[in-house]
């Protein structure tokens, strides 16, 4: 087996129904796309030989991603244009290949570098929303962020997130109008930063701020951007 010489960075979108895939399911789907595309992927040595790759930071189930990344090591050079064409032909509806480039093989991992996350959440309520509601949500969110921490209990284990470092800029809450039926929705834009402790799920942050009794329904969550300090 030749040494892996090249590291390809695949830039893609995960959207539509595939936003419902788990991180593990997405990784497997990407592996299968790469094999179908017949890229010269490198194989790890050892007991469980497998494709050498490194996915970007996980997207929560139900969240779309418009600027996602996936690294794979290869043993031969294929032009990025050719790689992209092959990946596109081998992909599935809901994984849209945007571009590929070669990056240095020894670069730090995506999960360590791509710590800046921008999210958009759309919330709705029966009967529609108004400016007052948007202002109230804005206040609730800012109040929570001002406390400096978010406590999440999952499977009886509590985890505390430091919101001072996790929330990069103040949230932006606005009214948006649905394209098809003209109904008003709330749009929340969040700029978050992940750390060694993991990343705050925007859904948890917003639901904690609004309270469990809130009649607002989440219509969609999208990670619109993911980037590193170097970008």
């Amino acid at each position, binding site marked *: 087996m030749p040494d892996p010489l090249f590291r390809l960075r695949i830039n893609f979108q995960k959207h539509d129904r595939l936003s419902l895939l788990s991180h593990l*399911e997405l990784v497997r789907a990407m*592996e299968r796309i790469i094999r179908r595309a*017949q890229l010269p992927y490198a194989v*790890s040595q050892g007991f469980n030989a497998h494709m050498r790759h490194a996915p970007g930071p996980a997207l929560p189930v139900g969240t779309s991603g418009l600027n996602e990344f996936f690294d794979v090591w290869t043993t031969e050079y294929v032009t990025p244009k050719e790689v992209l064409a092959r990946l596109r032909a081998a992909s599935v*509806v809901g994984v849209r290949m945007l571009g590929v480039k070669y990056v240095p093989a020894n670069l730090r991992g995506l999960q360590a570098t791509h710590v800046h996350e921008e999210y958009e959440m759309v919330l709705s309520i029966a009967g529609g929303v108004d400016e007052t509601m948007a202002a109230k949500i804005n206040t609730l969110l800012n109040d929570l962020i001002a406390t400096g921490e978010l406590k999440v209990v999952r499977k009886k284990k509590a985890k505390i997130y430091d919101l001072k470092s996790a929330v990069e800029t103040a949230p932006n809450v606005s009214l948006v109008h649905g394209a098809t039926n003209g109904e008003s929705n709330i749009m929340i834009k969040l700029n978050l930063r992940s750390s060694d402790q993991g990343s705050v799920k925007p859904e948890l942050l917003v639901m904690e701020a609004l309270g469990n009794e809130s009649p607002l329904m989440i219509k969609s969550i999208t990670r619109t951007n993911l980037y590193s300090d170097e970008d």
Partner: protein
Amino acid sequence: MKKTESVWPLIEPHLTKVERPSRYINHEYNAYSGSPRQTNDHSCHTDNHLSHTRDSLCHSRAGGNPSEHSRYRAAFLYPDTYEIGQSNAAIAILYQLVNTHEGCSAERVFLPWLDMIDVMRKHDIPLFALESATPVAGFDMFGITLPHTLAATNILEAIDLAGIPIKSCDRTLEHPLVVGGGPEAFNPEPLSSFFDAFMIGEGEEVLLEFVDTHRRCLDQRMSKAELLLELSKIEGVYIPSLYKLDHNALRPKDESIPTRINKRVIKDFDKLPPVTDPIVPFAEVAHDRLTIELLRGCTRGCRFCQAGMIYRPVRERSADMIIDSVARGLACTGFDEVSLVSLSSTDHSQIEQILKRLHRMLSGTGVGISLPSQRLDAFGIDMARLVAGEKKTGLTFAPEAGTQRLRDIINKNVTEKNLIDAVEQAYAAGWRRCKLYFMIGLPGETDEDIIGIAELANRAYAAAKDSVPDGQRGNVRMTVSVAVFVPKSHTPFQWGGQIAREEIDRRITVLRNAKMHKGIDLSWHDPATSRIEAAISRAGREASTLIEEVWRQGAKFDAWSERFNELLWENAADAVGLDISAMAERNYSIEEPLPWDHISCGVSKKFLAKEYDRSLAIETSTDCSFDRCIACGVCTDLDVDIKLGGESRA
């Protein structure tokens, strides 16, 4: 709601709240989009596959129009969750077959998991087919795979969740035709009141004949009675409503209806290429790999084994076809593993050549090969070594019985020496764990045979330890897995009942008390589920009342050990006046009509009786794939030949 309207907008808001939403989303690679493909040339990278759901071709979903009336629509259910059903090879074959048939389309249906069923029932969302997300009730055919006895309650749950009356007699032309097929169709009577029709045997040919006939009958606006009569003329199709009980035997209501339904068998299986563009699931499924069927049938003749009788004769695909299919299949799917399946894969006459060529082809790709059924001898280990590489995870051997006497009774033609040789070779080659599979409650079993299981396991364990280097003996593991024998229709043991529950418990105690090395783990298949299987699998029409009642009491997912509830079955049996013990333990006399006498798998009843007699005399029988014909009747009755390496045997 309209039967042709997509329920997707109704289910979507709930999907982030249920377990594994990827079960319900469709859009997998190689899934059909709803519009039929033109042809199938077994290569996924051609323009003929425009209707595949793939990114480069269709960012919005390729357009199937479910309201198009001229198209015949079939929905195929595997009566369990997506993870189990999506792994099923039969569904993959039938799905491709109908989707490439002119004017037809097929979609997949699985039983949603309990959390999703609750959501659907609460919000009045009917069971839907994945591809179009339209209700199953709007399809022309609802085809249901009958994989095993314990799927019965899931079948009723699915029909009911679809909003379709569960009984055939309550359904009209407004409803899809509910059709069953698969191993359980060989004794269809326990399910007969829920199905309009059964297809007996291999489905590749009969399904399309069925579809064409059904479509013609619908075009001609026939009544349901006329339509069923027309379908009964197809070889291999059984219409239960056209038969009635007469002196304990099922007979046709009319002279024009066949008295015996012969199974369908693909004579030219060797010329039929395997599916090389199966759906590539997102969710991690039970068998998450490319499946290539090496051969069909097994004539080793184990007397307890129904599969060994109903899938005869042996027909092998050639090595060339298999290698070619693996290459195409991997390119079309991107799987990282291929499984070479059959009832007994190492029995393929060219298996060594196949494995060596595949090994060479896949070397360095990270793609693994798996060979699910391990032959119990040194050759089997040679073959296992060829596929395993460095990854020697575990091997399963099935001696089935603890003594040679009992192995001869059941015609399991392996010796203790075969087992010891296999174990020695496996552990010497680097394996450190294996599983030995046995049954208790086999006909003719004595306590010595049960103690023999422990003794055989001890000797195998000692052989394993002796075969590994000194420093590694502590790593030697062995599991003995025991199940209770369930007598099945169409086998030499079809006449005798299962041993009584108390006797099962006593024999289990005998084995538990037998001295087994502490390095051997003993595990059990729950005897309570085996008892229900025994009660249903050889029952007649009366059993459908029990199945309906237990489902009404809430039973479903009975094959999931954590969901199985014996008490529900007992209560249901009481309610309908049946006795589960009596059903499970029932002995039929050789002269007495059997509930499945009208269904023929080609193996004659005379042959089965002769094999039963030979078991009583502790005489073994040979395998006709390697040895002389023992006149089971399949080849002559169904006009089919044994084919080895893709060629008829001289």
